[in-house]
Protein backbone atom coordinates (compact mmCIF):
# COMPACT_ATOMS: atom_id res chain seq x y z
CA UNK A 1 0.00 0.00 0.00
CA UNK A 2 1.43 3.35 -0.95
CA UNK A 3 1.40 6.21 1.47
CA UNK A 4 -1.20 8.08 -0.55
CA UNK A 5 -3.44 5.01 -0.61
CA UNK A 6 -3.17 4.73 3.15
CA UNK A 7 -4.03 8.41 3.45
CA UNK A 8 -7.00 7.97 1.13
CA UNK A 9 -8.36 5.01 3.12
CA UNK A 10 -7.81 6.87 6.34
CA UNK A 11 -9.79 9.83 5.04
CA UNK A 12 -12.56 7.55 3.81
CA UNK A 13 -12.60 5.76 7.14
CA UNK A 14 -12.85 8.99 9.07
CA UNK A 15 -15.60 10.24 6.80
CA UNK A 16 -17.57 7.02 7.15
CA UNK A 17 -17.00 7.13 10.90
CA UNK A 18 -18.23 10.69 11.20
CA UNK A 19 -21.43 9.87 9.33
CA UNK A 20 -21.86 6.84 11.54
CA UNK A 21 -21.46 9.07 14.57
CA UNK A 22 -24.55 11.04 13.61
CA UNK A 23 -26.58 7.84 13.71
CA UNK A 24 -24.92 6.29 16.74
CA UNK A 25 -25.09 9.44 18.88
CA UNK A 26 -28.88 9.43 18.70
CA UNK A 27 -29.04 5.70 19.34
CA UNK A 28 -26.85 5.94 22.42
CA UNK A 29 -28.76 8.97 23.77
CA UNK A 30 -32.14 7.34 23.31
CA UNK A 31 -30.89 4.27 25.11
CA UNK A 32 -28.94 6.13 27.78
CA UNK A 33 -31.51 8.80 28.59
CA UNK A 34 -34.87 7.28 27.64
CA UNK A 35 -33.85 3.69 28.33
CA UNK A 36 -35.33 2.59 25.01
CA UNK A 37 -33.65 0.05 22.79
CA UNK A 38 -34.60 1.57 19.45
CA UNK A 39 -34.41 -0.81 16.50
CA UNK A 40 -36.12 1.76 14.30
CA UNK A 41 -33.17 4.11 14.50
CA UNK A 42 -31.72 2.82 11.20
CA UNK A 43 -35.08 3.50 9.54
CA UNK A 44 -34.75 7.18 10.29
CA UNK A 45 -31.44 7.10 8.44
CA UNK A 46 -33.21 5.47 5.52
CA UNK A 47 -36.15 7.88 5.64
CA UNK A 48 -33.69 10.77 5.68
CA UNK A 49 -32.05 9.41 2.54
CA UNK A 50 -35.40 8.98 0.78
CA UNK A 51 -36.51 12.41 1.85
CA UNK A 52 -33.27 13.90 0.51
CA UNK A 53 -33.79 12.05 -2.77
CA UNK A 54 -37.40 13.22 -3.09
CA UNK A 55 -36.80 16.79 -2.03
CA UNK A 56 -33.62 17.12 -4.10
CA UNK A 57 -35.55 16.01 -7.20
CA UNK A 58 -38.18 18.65 -6.55
CA UNK A 59 -36.02 21.53 -5.43
CA UNK A 60 -33.06 20.64 -7.61
CA UNK A 61 -30.70 21.11 -4.69
CA UNK A 62 -29.49 18.70 -2.05
CA UNK A 63 -28.72 21.65 0.20
CA UNK A 64 -32.37 22.76 0.10
CA UNK A 65 -33.42 19.18 0.63
CA UNK A 66 -31.36 19.03 3.81
CA UNK A 67 -32.52 22.41 5.07
CA UNK A 68 -36.14 21.39 4.55
CA UNK A 69 -35.71 17.76 5.48
CA UNK A 70 -34.08 18.14 8.88
CA UNK A 71 -36.93 20.16 10.44
CA UNK A 72 -39.43 17.77 8.86
CA UNK A 73 -37.66 14.82 10.43
CA UNK A 74 -37.50 16.62 13.80
CA UNK A 75 -41.26 16.91 13.64
CA UNK A 76 -41.63 13.33 12.45
CA UNK A 77 -39.45 12.15 15.33
CA UNK A 78 -41.61 14.06 17.76
CA UNK A 79 -44.73 12.37 16.40
CA UNK A 80 -43.19 8.91 16.52
CA UNK A 81 -42.14 9.53 20.13
CA UNK A 82 -45.60 10.75 21.16
CA UNK A 83 -47.53 8.05 19.30
CA UNK A 84 -45.34 5.00 19.81
CA UNK A 85 -42.11 5.27 21.75
CA UNK A 86 -43.63 7.08 24.76
CA UNK A 87 -45.56 3.90 25.48
CA UNK A 88 -42.30 2.02 25.98
CA UNK A 89 -40.67 3.86 28.86
CA UNK A 90 -42.12 1.61 31.53
CA UNK A 91 -41.73 -1.55 29.44
CA UNK A 92 -38.97 -4.15 29.31
CA UNK A 93 -36.45 -4.39 26.49
CA UNK A 94 -38.36 -7.20 24.78
CA UNK A 95 -41.46 -5.04 24.26
CA UNK A 96 -39.21 -2.24 23.08
CA UNK A 97 -37.52 -4.45 20.51
CA UNK A 98 -40.87 -5.82 19.32
CA UNK A 99 -42.49 -2.44 18.86
CA UNK A 100 -39.51 -0.69 17.32
CA UNK A 101 -38.90 -3.66 15.02
CA UNK A 102 -42.53 -3.34 14.00
CA UNK A 103 -41.75 0.25 13.08
CA UNK A 104 -38.83 -0.94 10.93
CA UNK A 105 -41.18 -3.20 8.94
CA UNK A 106 -43.71 -0.39 8.67
CA UNK A 107 -41.19 2.16 7.42
CA UNK A 108 -39.68 -0.33 4.97
CA UNK A 109 -43.07 -1.14 3.48
CA UNK A 110 -43.93 2.52 3.38
CA UNK A 111 -40.79 3.37 1.44
CA UNK A 112 -41.41 0.47 -0.99
CA UNK A 113 -44.95 1.66 -1.52
CA UNK A 114 -43.89 5.23 -2.20
CA UNK A 115 -40.63 4.68 -4.06
CA UNK A 116 -40.66 1.06 -5.26
CA UNK A 117 -37.81 -1.41 -5.00
CA UNK A 118 -35.48 0.57 -7.21
CA UNK A 119 -32.16 1.97 -6.23
CA UNK A 120 -32.27 5.73 -6.58
CA UNK A 121 -29.17 7.75 -7.25
CA UNK A 122 -28.84 11.19 -5.72
CA UNK A 123 -26.64 13.70 -7.51
CA UNK A 124 -23.71 15.26 -5.72
CA UNK A 125 -24.21 19.02 -5.56
CA UNK A 126 -22.43 20.60 -8.51
CA UNK A 127 -20.44 22.90 -6.29
CA UNK A 128 -18.96 19.89 -4.49
CA UNK A 129 -18.40 17.60 -7.46
CA UNK A 130 -14.67 18.23 -7.68
CA UNK A 131 -11.92 16.36 -5.89
CA UNK A 132 -8.55 16.87 -4.28
CA UNK A 133 -5.45 15.15 -5.58
CA UNK A 134 -3.67 12.92 -3.12
CA UNK A 135 -0.24 12.08 -4.51
CA UNK A 136 0.12 10.76 -8.11
CA UNK A 137 -2.96 8.65 -8.69
CA UNK A 138 -5.42 9.03 -5.82
CA UNK A 139 -7.90 11.81 -5.32
CA UNK A 140 -10.51 12.50 -2.66
CA UNK A 141 -13.96 13.84 -3.57
CA UNK A 142 -14.77 17.32 -2.33
CA UNK A 143 -18.21 16.05 -1.29
CA UNK A 144 -16.65 13.69 1.22
CA UNK A 145 -14.68 16.55 2.68
CA UNK A 146 -17.92 18.49 2.92
CA UNK A 147 -19.78 15.70 4.72
CA UNK A 148 -16.84 15.17 7.07
CA UNK A 149 -16.70 18.84 7.98
CA UNK A 150 -20.48 19.03 8.40
CA UNK A 151 -20.42 16.05 10.75
CA UNK A 152 -17.53 17.54 12.69
CA UNK A 153 -19.40 20.80 13.13
CA UNK A 154 -22.43 18.89 14.36
CA UNK A 155 -20.29 16.82 16.72
CA UNK A 156 -18.87 20.01 18.23
CA UNK A 157 -22.34 21.53 18.47
CA UNK A 158 -23.62 18.40 20.19
CA UNK A 159 -20.70 18.53 22.59
CA UNK A 160 -21.52 22.12 23.41
CA UNK A 161 -25.22 21.37 23.96
CA UNK A 162 -24.55 18.35 26.17
CA UNK A 163 -21.76 19.83 28.28
CA UNK A 164 -22.48 23.53 28.16
CA UNK A 165 -26.23 24.12 28.27
CA UNK A 166 -28.96 23.54 30.82
CA UNK A 167 -30.74 21.27 28.36
CA UNK A 168 -27.57 19.18 28.27
CA UNK A 169 -27.38 19.09 32.05
CA UNK A 170 -30.96 17.89 32.22
CA UNK A 171 -30.27 15.30 29.60
CA UNK A 172 -27.34 13.94 31.62
CA UNK A 173 -29.32 14.18 34.85
CA UNK A 174 -32.27 12.41 33.25
CA UNK A 175 -30.04 9.55 32.18
CA UNK A 176 -29.33 8.68 35.81
CA UNK A 177 -32.44 9.87 37.68
CA UNK A 178 -35.34 11.17 35.62
CA UNK A 179 -37.76 11.04 38.54
CA UNK A 180 -35.61 13.47 40.52
CA UNK A 181 -35.70 15.93 37.64
CA UNK A 182 -39.45 15.61 37.35
CA UNK A 183 -40.07 16.19 41.04
CA UNK A 184 -37.95 19.33 40.92
CA UNK A 185 -40.20 20.79 38.26
CA UNK A 186 -38.78 19.60 34.93
CA UNK A 187 -41.25 18.17 32.42
CA UNK A 188 -39.41 14.95 31.75
CA UNK A 189 -41.84 13.79 29.05
CA UNK A 190 -41.08 16.90 27.05
CA UNK A 191 -37.36 16.45 27.64
CA UNK A 192 -37.54 12.86 26.42
CA UNK A 193 -39.56 13.82 23.35
CA UNK A 194 -36.94 16.42 22.46
CA UNK A 195 -34.07 14.00 22.90
CA UNK A 196 -35.82 11.42 20.76
CA UNK A 197 -36.66 13.77 17.94
CA UNK A 198 -33.14 15.20 17.98
CA UNK A 199 -31.86 11.64 17.62
CA UNK A 200 -34.21 11.06 14.69
CA UNK A 201 -33.09 14.26 13.00
CA UNK A 202 -29.41 13.35 13.44
CA UNK A 203 -29.91 9.89 11.92
CA UNK A 204 -31.95 11.37 9.08
CA UNK A 205 -29.28 13.98 8.42
CA UNK A 206 -26.70 11.21 8.15
CA UNK A 207 -28.95 9.49 5.60
CA UNK A 208 -29.35 12.72 3.65
CA UNK A 209 -25.61 13.41 3.57
CA UNK A 210 -24.84 9.80 2.67
CA UNK A 211 -27.45 9.60 -0.10
CA UNK A 212 -25.16 10.76 -2.95
CA UNK A 213 -22.45 8.35 -1.77
CA UNK A 214 -24.49 5.20 -1.20
CA UNK A 215 -27.59 5.72 -3.39
CA UNK A 216 -31.01 5.20 -1.83
CA UNK A 217 -32.74 1.79 -1.56
CA UNK A 218 -35.22 -0.09 0.62
CA UNK A 219 -33.76 -1.56 3.78
CA UNK A 220 -30.64 0.62 3.62
CA UNK A 221 -31.13 1.40 7.32
CA UNK A 222 -30.60 -2.13 8.57
CA UNK A 223 -26.87 -2.45 8.08
CA UNK A 224 -26.42 1.04 9.50
CA UNK A 225 -28.46 0.08 12.55
CA UNK A 226 -26.35 -3.00 13.25
CA UNK A 227 -23.09 -1.15 12.85
CA UNK A 228 -24.40 1.69 15.02
CA UNK A 229 -25.14 -0.76 17.80
CA UNK A 230 -21.54 -1.94 17.50
CA UNK A 231 -20.43 1.68 17.84
CA UNK A 232 -22.64 2.25 20.88
CA UNK A 233 -21.27 -0.84 22.58
CA UNK A 234 -17.67 0.07 21.77
CA UNK A 235 -18.13 3.64 22.98
CA UNK A 236 -20.01 2.70 26.14
CA UNK A 237 -23.79 2.77 26.30
CA UNK A 238 -25.15 6.28 26.77
CA UNK A 239 -21.87 8.03 26.06
CA UNK A 240 -21.92 10.46 23.15
CA UNK A 241 -18.17 10.96 23.44
CA UNK A 242 -17.84 7.18 23.27
CA UNK A 243 -20.05 7.11 20.18
CA UNK A 244 -17.73 9.64 18.55
CA UNK A 245 -14.51 7.71 19.09
CA UNK A 246 -16.26 4.37 18.59
CA UNK A 247 -17.63 5.55 15.25
CA UNK A 248 -14.22 6.75 14.07
CA UNK A 249 -12.67 3.46 15.13
CA UNK A 250 -15.33 1.43 13.35
CA UNK A 251 -15.23 3.62 10.24
CA UNK A 252 -11.46 3.29 9.93
CA UNK A 253 -11.42 -0.42 10.77
CA UNK A 254 -14.14 -1.14 8.24
CA UNK A 255 -12.45 0.82 5.46
CA UNK A 256 -9.05 -0.78 6.02
CA UNK A 257 -10.63 -4.19 6.47
CA UNK A 258 -12.18 -3.95 3.01
CA UNK A 259 -8.81 -3.15 1.48
CA UNK A 260 -6.50 -5.38 3.49
CA UNK A 261 -8.60 -8.48 4.16
CA UNK A 262 -11.48 -8.26 1.68
CA UNK A 263 -12.56 -11.88 2.16
CA UNK A 264 -13.34 -11.41 5.88
CA UNK A 265 -13.85 -7.65 5.92
CA UNK A 266 -17.32 -7.85 7.46
CA UNK A 267 -15.85 -9.54 10.54
CA UNK A 268 -13.28 -6.83 11.19
CA UNK A 269 -15.50 -4.42 13.10
CA UNK A 270 -16.77 -7.24 15.30
CA UNK A 271 -13.19 -8.26 16.04
CA UNK A 272 -12.50 -4.65 17.01
CA UNK A 273 -15.57 -4.64 19.23
CA UNK A 274 -14.50 -7.87 20.93
CA UNK A 275 -11.01 -6.48 21.49
CA UNK A 276 -12.35 -3.27 23.01
CA UNK A 277 -14.72 -5.17 25.28
CA UNK A 278 -11.97 -7.45 26.52
CA UNK A 279 -9.90 -4.37 27.31
CA UNK A 280 -12.84 -2.35 28.71
CA UNK A 281 -15.96 -4.41 29.39
CA UNK A 282 -18.17 -1.29 29.54
CA UNK A 283 -16.78 0.20 26.36
CA UNK A 284 -14.45 3.14 25.95
CA UNK A 285 -16.46 5.65 27.98
CA UNK A 286 -19.03 3.44 29.67
CA UNK A 287 -20.06 4.58 33.14
CA UNK A 288 -19.35 2.18 35.98
CA UNK A 289 -22.50 0.53 37.29
CA UNK A 290 -22.83 2.73 40.38
CA UNK A 291 -22.82 5.94 38.35
CA UNK A 292 -25.75 4.98 36.13
Amino acid at each position, binding site marked *: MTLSLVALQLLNGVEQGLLLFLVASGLTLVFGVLGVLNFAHGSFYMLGAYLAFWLAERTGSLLFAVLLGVPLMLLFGFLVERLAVARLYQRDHLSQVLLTYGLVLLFNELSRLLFGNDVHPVATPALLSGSFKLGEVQSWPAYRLFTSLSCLVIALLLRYVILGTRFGMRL*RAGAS*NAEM*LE*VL*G*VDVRKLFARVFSAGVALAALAGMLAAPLTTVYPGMGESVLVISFVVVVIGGIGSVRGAFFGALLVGIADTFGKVLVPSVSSAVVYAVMAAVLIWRPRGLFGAPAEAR
Partner: protein
Amino acid sequence: MTAPLLEVEDLHAYYGESHVLHGVSFSIAEGETLTLMGRNGMGKTTTIRSALGLLPPRRGVVRVRGHAVTGLRPHSIAQLGIALVPEGRGIFPTLTVREHLVVTARPGRWTAERTLELFPRLRERLGTLGAQLSGGEQQMLSIARALLTNPDLVILDGATEGLAPLVRQEIWTALRRLRAEGTAALVVDKEVKALLALGDRHLILVKGRIAFAGTTPQWRARAEENLALLRA
Protein backbone atom coordinates in the same frame (compact mmCIF):
# COMPACT_ATOMS: atom_id res chain seq x y z
CA MET B 1 -58.78 32.36 56.47
CA THR B 2 -56.48 31.58 53.57
CA ALA B 3 -56.16 28.02 52.30
CA PRO B 4 -53.20 26.01 53.57
CA LEU B 5 -50.11 25.81 51.41
CA LEU B 6 -50.42 22.05 51.21
CA GLU B 7 -53.40 20.02 52.26
CA VAL B 8 -53.69 16.27 52.11
CA GLU B 9 -57.06 14.69 52.75
CA ASP B 10 -57.89 11.03 53.25
CA LEU B 11 -54.94 9.75 51.23
CA HIS B 12 -54.99 6.05 50.33
CA ALA B 13 -51.97 4.66 48.52
CA TYR B 14 -51.12 1.19 47.28
CA TYR B 15 -48.10 -0.66 45.96
CA GLY B 16 -49.86 -3.10 43.65
CA GLU B 17 -52.30 -4.88 45.92
CA SER B 18 -50.72 -3.86 49.18
CA HIS B 19 -52.58 -1.03 50.85
CA VAL B 20 -49.98 1.20 52.50
CA LEU B 21 -51.69 4.50 53.37
CA HIS B 22 -55.08 4.29 55.08
CA GLY B 23 -56.56 7.76 54.94
CA VAL B 24 -53.76 10.14 55.82
CA SER B 25 -54.81 13.78 56.31
CA PHE B 26 -52.79 16.84 57.31
CA SER B 27 -52.08 20.36 56.21
CA ILE B 28 -49.17 22.78 56.22
CA ALA B 29 -49.71 26.53 56.45
CA GLU B 30 -47.49 29.13 54.77
CA GLY B 31 -44.22 29.35 56.65
CA GLU B 32 -45.05 26.48 58.98
CA THR B 33 -42.67 23.67 59.84
CA LEU B 34 -44.36 20.30 60.18
CA THR B 35 -42.45 17.18 61.16
CA LEU B 36 -43.38 13.66 60.17
CA MET B 37 -42.24 10.97 62.60
CA GLY B 38 -42.62 7.23 62.52
CA ARG B 39 -40.67 4.01 62.57
CA ASN B 40 -39.28 2.46 59.40
CA GLY B 41 -41.90 1.24 56.99
CA MET B 42 -44.78 3.22 58.50
CA GLY B 43 -45.46 5.13 55.28
CA LYS B 44 -43.59 8.44 55.58
CA THR B 45 -41.94 8.18 52.20
CA THR B 46 -45.13 6.86 50.65
CA THR B 47 -47.07 9.83 52.03
CA ILE B 48 -44.58 12.22 50.47
CA ARG B 49 -44.48 10.40 47.15
CA SER B 50 -48.25 10.33 47.03
CA ALA B 51 -48.63 14.01 47.80
CA LEU B 52 -46.11 14.90 45.09
CA GLY B 53 -47.79 12.80 42.43
CA LEU B 54 -44.95 10.27 42.21
CA LEU B 55 -47.28 7.57 43.45
CA PRO B 56 -50.75 8.78 42.52
CA PRO B 57 -53.16 8.02 45.40
CA ARG B 58 -56.12 5.70 44.78
CA ARG B 59 -58.32 7.80 46.97
CA GLY B 60 -58.04 11.19 48.60
CA VAL B 61 -57.26 14.73 47.56
CA VAL B 62 -54.09 16.79 47.56
CA ARG B 63 -54.52 20.57 47.39
CA VAL B 64 -51.94 23.29 46.96
CA ARG B 65 -53.22 26.68 48.16
CA GLY B 66 -56.75 25.33 47.88
CA HIS B 67 -56.45 23.95 44.35
CA ALA B 68 -56.73 20.20 43.87
CA VAL B 69 -53.58 18.83 42.25
CA THR B 70 -54.44 15.15 42.45
CA GLY B 71 -53.72 13.59 39.07
CA LEU B 72 -51.31 16.32 37.97
CA ARG B 73 -47.86 15.19 36.95
CA PRO B 74 -45.10 15.70 39.52
CA HIS B 75 -43.38 18.54 37.66
CA SER B 76 -46.61 20.54 37.61
CA ILE B 77 -47.07 20.07 41.34
CA ALA B 78 -43.43 21.01 41.95
CA GLN B 79 -43.84 24.16 39.90
CA LEU B 80 -46.49 25.34 42.34
CA GLY B 81 -43.65 25.85 44.78
CA ILE B 82 -42.79 22.53 46.38
CA ALA B 83 -39.31 21.02 46.38
CA LEU B 84 -38.11 17.63 47.56
CA VAL B 85 -34.95 16.48 49.28
CA PRO B 86 -35.59 12.78 48.79
CA GLU B 87 -34.64 9.70 50.72
CA GLY B 88 -31.21 8.73 49.40
CA ARG B 89 -30.60 12.39 48.43
CA GLY B 90 -31.14 11.92 44.69
CA ILE B 91 -27.84 13.46 43.65
CA PHE B 92 -27.07 13.18 39.93
CA PRO B 93 -23.83 11.18 39.85
CA THR B 94 -22.55 12.57 36.56
CA LEU B 95 -23.26 16.26 37.23
CA THR B 96 -20.87 18.55 39.06
CA VAL B 97 -21.85 20.46 42.16
CA ARG B 98 -22.02 23.64 40.10
CA GLU B 99 -24.35 21.98 37.62
CA HIS B 100 -26.65 20.82 40.41
CA LEU B 101 -27.06 24.46 41.36
CA VAL B 102 -28.27 25.26 37.85
CA VAL B 103 -30.02 22.22 36.45
CA THR B 104 -33.45 22.73 38.05
CA ALA B 105 -33.06 26.27 39.41
CA ARG B 106 -35.87 28.79 39.03
CA PRO B 107 -35.45 32.52 39.65
CA GLY B 108 -36.20 33.95 43.08
CA ARG B 109 -34.69 34.85 46.43
CA TRP B 110 -32.38 31.87 46.50
CA THR B 111 -29.38 32.24 44.25
CA ALA B 112 -26.43 29.89 43.89
CA GLU B 113 -24.37 32.41 45.84
CA ARG B 114 -26.79 32.38 48.78
CA THR B 115 -26.90 28.58 48.96
CA LEU B 116 -23.10 28.58 49.00
CA GLU B 117 -23.19 30.96 51.93
CA LEU B 118 -25.58 28.57 53.65
CA PHE B 119 -23.28 25.60 52.94
CA PRO B 120 -19.76 27.00 52.49
CA ARG B 121 -18.37 23.51 52.21
CA LEU B 122 -19.97 23.16 48.77
CA ARG B 123 -17.97 26.09 47.47
CA GLU B 124 -14.77 24.08 47.65
CA ARG B 125 -16.39 21.27 45.69
CA LEU B 126 -17.96 23.17 42.79
CA GLY B 127 -16.18 21.15 40.13
CA THR B 128 -16.65 17.77 41.81
CA LEU B 129 -19.04 15.18 40.39
CA GLY B 130 -22.04 14.22 42.51
CA ALA B 131 -20.87 10.62 42.73
CA GLN B 132 -17.65 11.72 44.44
CA LEU B 133 -19.22 13.72 47.26
CA SER B 134 -19.44 12.52 50.86
CA GLY B 135 -22.87 11.79 52.30
CA GLY B 136 -22.97 15.09 54.13
CA GLU B 137 -21.97 17.06 51.07
CA GLN B 138 -24.61 15.25 49.04
CA GLN B 139 -27.28 16.17 51.56
CA MET B 140 -26.21 19.81 51.58
CA LEU B 141 -26.26 19.80 47.80
CA SER B 142 -29.66 18.16 47.73
CA ILE B 143 -31.01 20.89 50.01
CA ALA B 144 -29.30 23.63 48.00
CA ARG B 145 -30.73 22.22 44.78
CA ALA B 146 -34.21 22.17 46.31
CA LEU B 147 -33.89 25.76 47.59
CA LEU B 148 -32.77 26.93 44.17
CA THR B 149 -36.18 26.04 42.75
CA ASN B 150 -37.28 28.82 45.13
CA PRO B 151 -40.06 26.84 46.75
CA ASP B 152 -42.56 27.91 49.38
CA LEU B 153 -42.42 24.43 50.84
CA VAL B 154 -39.39 22.16 51.18
CA ILE B 155 -39.99 18.50 51.90
CA LEU B 156 -37.06 16.66 53.47
CA ASP B 157 -37.45 12.90 53.51
CA GLY B 158 -34.69 12.31 56.01
CA ALA B 159 -32.95 15.53 57.01
CA THR B 160 -29.83 14.15 58.66
CA GLU B 161 -30.08 10.39 58.43
CA GLY B 162 -26.79 8.54 58.18
CA LEU B 163 -24.69 11.69 58.62
CA ALA B 164 -21.87 12.55 61.02
CA PRO B 165 -22.81 14.65 64.09
CA LEU B 166 -21.09 17.83 62.91
CA VAL B 167 -22.81 17.71 59.55
CA ARG B 168 -26.14 17.14 61.26
CA GLN B 169 -25.61 20.27 63.30
CA GLU B 170 -24.96 22.20 60.14
CA ILE B 171 -28.14 20.92 58.53
CA TRP B 172 -30.34 21.64 61.55
CA THR B 173 -28.90 25.16 61.61
CA ALA B 174 -29.74 25.58 57.95
CA LEU B 175 -33.30 24.37 58.56
CA ARG B 176 -33.72 26.86 61.41
CA ARG B 177 -32.62 29.59 59.04
CA LEU B 178 -35.13 28.49 56.46
CA ARG B 179 -37.83 28.59 59.06
CA ALA B 180 -36.80 32.08 60.14
CA GLU B 181 -37.06 33.19 56.52
CA GLY B 182 -40.64 31.98 56.36
CA THR B 183 -40.17 28.96 54.09
CA ALA B 184 -42.52 26.15 55.07
CA ALA B 185 -41.08 22.69 55.58
CA LEU B 186 -42.16 19.09 56.02
CA VAL B 187 -39.33 17.30 57.79
CA VAL B 188 -38.81 13.58 58.27
CA ASP B 189 -36.01 12.43 60.57
CA LYS B 190 -35.03 9.99 63.27
CA GLU B 191 -33.79 12.64 65.71
CA VAL B 192 -36.95 13.30 67.71
CA LYS B 193 -35.31 15.91 69.93
CA ALA B 194 -34.15 17.95 66.99
CA LEU B 195 -37.55 17.66 65.31
CA LEU B 196 -39.33 18.87 68.46
CA ALA B 197 -36.95 21.81 68.69
CA LEU B 198 -37.50 22.76 65.07
CA GLY B 199 -41.13 22.06 64.23
CA ASP B 200 -44.32 23.99 64.92
CA ARG B 201 -46.43 20.87 64.69
CA HIS B 202 -45.73 17.15 64.51
CA LEU B 203 -47.27 14.02 63.06
CA ILE B 204 -46.65 10.43 63.99
CA LEU B 205 -47.44 7.85 61.38
CA VAL B 206 -48.18 4.26 62.41
CA LYS B 207 -48.90 1.69 59.70
CA GLY B 208 -50.21 4.22 57.25
CA ARG B 209 -52.42 6.09 59.74
CA ILE B 210 -51.85 9.31 61.65
CA ALA B 211 -51.51 8.26 65.29
CA PHE B 212 -50.67 11.69 66.64
CA ALA B 213 -50.97 15.24 65.35
CA GLY B 214 -50.27 18.31 67.45
CA THR B 215 -48.05 21.18 68.49
CA THR B 216 -44.78 20.77 70.37
CA PRO B 217 -46.41 21.32 73.81
CA GLN B 218 -49.14 18.83 72.89
CA TRP B 219 -46.46 16.34 71.81
CA ARG B 220 -44.61 16.77 75.10
CA ALA B 221 -47.81 16.43 77.10
CA ARG B 222 -48.01 12.83 75.97
CA ALA B 223 -44.33 12.17 75.45
CA GLU B 224 -44.43 8.66 76.93
CA GLU B 225 -47.10 7.40 74.54
CA ASN B 226 -45.49 9.12 71.58
CA LEU B 227 -42.07 7.69 72.32
CA ALA B 228 -43.66 4.27 72.53
CA LEU B 229 -45.13 4.81 69.05
CA LEU B 230 -41.66 5.63 67.76
CA ARG B 231 -39.73 2.88 69.51
CA ALA B 232 -38.51 0.22 67.15
